[in-house]
C-alpha cells in the first residue's frame, strides 16, 4: 500500500495590474492529497481572481498568460507540489 503523500504547496505569483487588483503578489496554496491535480484555471477560481463578470468557473481571461516554473505553459497543465505558478497580464515590453 503506498504511503499517503504529505500535502504539497504551490506558489502563486501575480504581476502588474493583476497584482494590484488582487492586493497580493505571492501566495502559497496547499493542494490536497488523493485529489486530481489542479490546473492554473482551478487555482484562478479557488483564489477568487476572476473579475466578477460572470465567466463560468474554470475559464481564464483570454489575454492572460500562464507561466509554470518560469516558463510559459498551457492553462490546463496539471500542477505538482513545489511548482511556481504565475498569472501574467498582457505583456508590454521593449
Amino acid at each position, binding site marked *: 500500500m503506498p504511503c499517503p503523500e504529505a500535502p504539497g504547496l504551490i506558489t502563486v*505569483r501575480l*504581476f*502588474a*495590474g493583476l497584482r494590484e487588483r488582487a492586493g497580493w503578489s505571492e501566495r502559497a496554496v496547499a493542494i490536497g492529497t488523493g485529489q486530481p491535480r489542479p490546473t492554473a484555471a482551478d487555482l484562478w477560481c479557488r483564489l477568487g481572481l476572476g473579475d466578477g463578470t460572470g465567466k463560468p468557473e474554470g475559464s481564464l481571461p483570454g*489575454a492572460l498568460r500562464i*507561466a509554470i516554473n*518560469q*516558463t*510559459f505553459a498551457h492553462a490546463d497543465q496539471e500542477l505538482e507540489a513545489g511548482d511556481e505558478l*504565475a498569472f*501574467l*497580464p*498582457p*505583456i*508590454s*515590453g*521593449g
Partner: protein
Amino acid sequence: MAAGLAMRVRLQPEGLVPLTALAVWQRHLLQNPPHALPPAEALFIGRVRSTTASGTPLQALELEHYPGMTEAQIERLALAVAARHGLAQVLVEHRVGRVLPGEAIVLVAVGADRRGPAQRGCLELLEGLKHDAPFWKREWSGGVGRWVEGNTPLSRVQESL
C-alpha cells in the same frame, strides 16, 4: 549556446546608456577571440516618449518584470532567433524600474556575416521582447499610474519577414 555565438542579456535597474553599453560589448568581443566585430550589425534603440498613449505629458514609465523568468525568457528568444538566422552575436539590454522620458528602455544589437540575417534577427528579437518577454509598463502622468496592456502592432514587417 550555439558554437561561436556570443550572447549577452542584461536587465538594467540603474540606467541604460546605449553607446556605453555598445562600447563595452565591442570591447568584450575584441578581447575574446574568435569573437570579433561582425561584418553586419543591426541595432535598435527604444526610448521613452514624452507623452502617454492618450497624449498627456508623461512623467515617467515604470517597468515591472518577473525576476528570473524575464532574463531566462529573453535568453530563450535570443537563442531561437540566433539559431534560425545563423547569428554570430546577440546583445539585449533592457531597463527595469522607473525610466524617464528620453531615456533608453531597450537596446538590441545583432551581428551576422550578412546584412539580411542581421536585420531579420534584430527585427524578430525586438518583436519577441515586445510580445513574449514578461515586462509590464505603467505610465505615470499627473501623479496617476496606468498599466499599459499590450503593444502597438508592427503591421507589415512582422508577417513578411
